[in-house]
């Protein structure tokens, strides 16, 4: 449960794609010059029977889901939520907690710090715009400016970047 989601995250590729790619690219570059190369079209097999089967399975699953929701609300089968992967469990399932940082490299942050909590709005005097905490973080990150990890944020960086 706590292993990370596979790095490919559900994406798949046509069989043999990586076996063909190096020779394909080299062939185009050496023979065709320097124009843009277009995609190797290795179509995914789409079989009508598969689609029909998928539709049938979908209908059955949808019916089952409706049935389960009804029975769950009425308490027929479920004594608790155990066994159901709730949204709140997902971060643990994805093993995101392991990634949480503790350290804040305060030495990298220029200027005075401004402390605030939650989603309260603050006003940046320079342009009169209002930013939430998340918006300021995004603003700093997009401009490669240091962002502290704690609740303290600097707006001097924003002001400096606008000058």
């Amino acid at each position, binding site marked *: 449960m706590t292993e990370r989601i596979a790095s490919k995250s559900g*994406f798949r590729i046509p069989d043999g794609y*990586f076996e063909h790619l190096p020779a394909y690219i*080299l062939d185009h570059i050496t023979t065709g010059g320097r124009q*843009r190369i277009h995609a190797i079209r290795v179509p995914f097999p789409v079989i009508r029977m598969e689609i029909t089967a998928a539709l049938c399975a979908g209908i059955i699953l949808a019916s089952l889901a409706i049935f389960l929701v009804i029975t769950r609300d009425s308490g027929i089968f479920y004594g608790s939520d155990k066994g159901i992967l709730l949204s709140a469990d997902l971060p643990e399932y994805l093993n995101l907690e392991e990634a*949480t940082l503790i350290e804040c490299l305060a030495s*990298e942050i220029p200027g005075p710090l401004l402390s605030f909590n939650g989603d309260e709005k603050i006003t940046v005097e320079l342009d009169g715009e209002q930013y939430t905490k998340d918006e300021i973080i995004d603003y700093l*990150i997009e401009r490669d400016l240091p962002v502290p990890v704690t609740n303290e944020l600097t707006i001097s960086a924003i002001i400096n970047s606008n000058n």
Partner: protein
Amino acid sequence: MPENDDQSILDLIGRPESRNRGFELLVHTYQERIYWLIRRIVFRHEDTDDVVQNVFLQVWLHLDSFRRDSRLFTWIYRIAVNEAIRWQKKNRLHHWISFSSMERELGNILVSDPGYNGTEVEFKLQKALLHLPFKQRLVFQMKYMESLKYEEMSAILGTSVGALKASYHHAVKKIERFLANH
């Protein structure tokens, strides 16, 4: 990939008689990592294929200007990131488009793409990633999915290690919030 392997690739490329063989080896060595970096950004295999080929075309065209003061991988990765950003801009999927429309569009790609067969949790994670600004998403993918070191990411993205750590931290927090609320 060890640096001495990079060295043998570059040695092959440096000799006219083995240049093609060296380049083929380069593509063979890095194609998968570059492919998955880009696939997670553009989603569709056909688009990824286009971008990947552009990346290696750029590598071929600029091989002589590679100064060898960074690792070959870092250099190629930078080109890949630039190409992915170019694709993002071209396709108007950059983060300044409203979240709802961007999420809808890329979500539709995932649903309709026969090349995507992720589980519900994987799909949810992809949706959560779409709520991050582009660079934060890139940082999260490089760290969480590709397990790159901050130092490597710093060399690729030209961002300080401190800013990357903070960026990753905030990305994780946002994803957690998204998962809890959706």
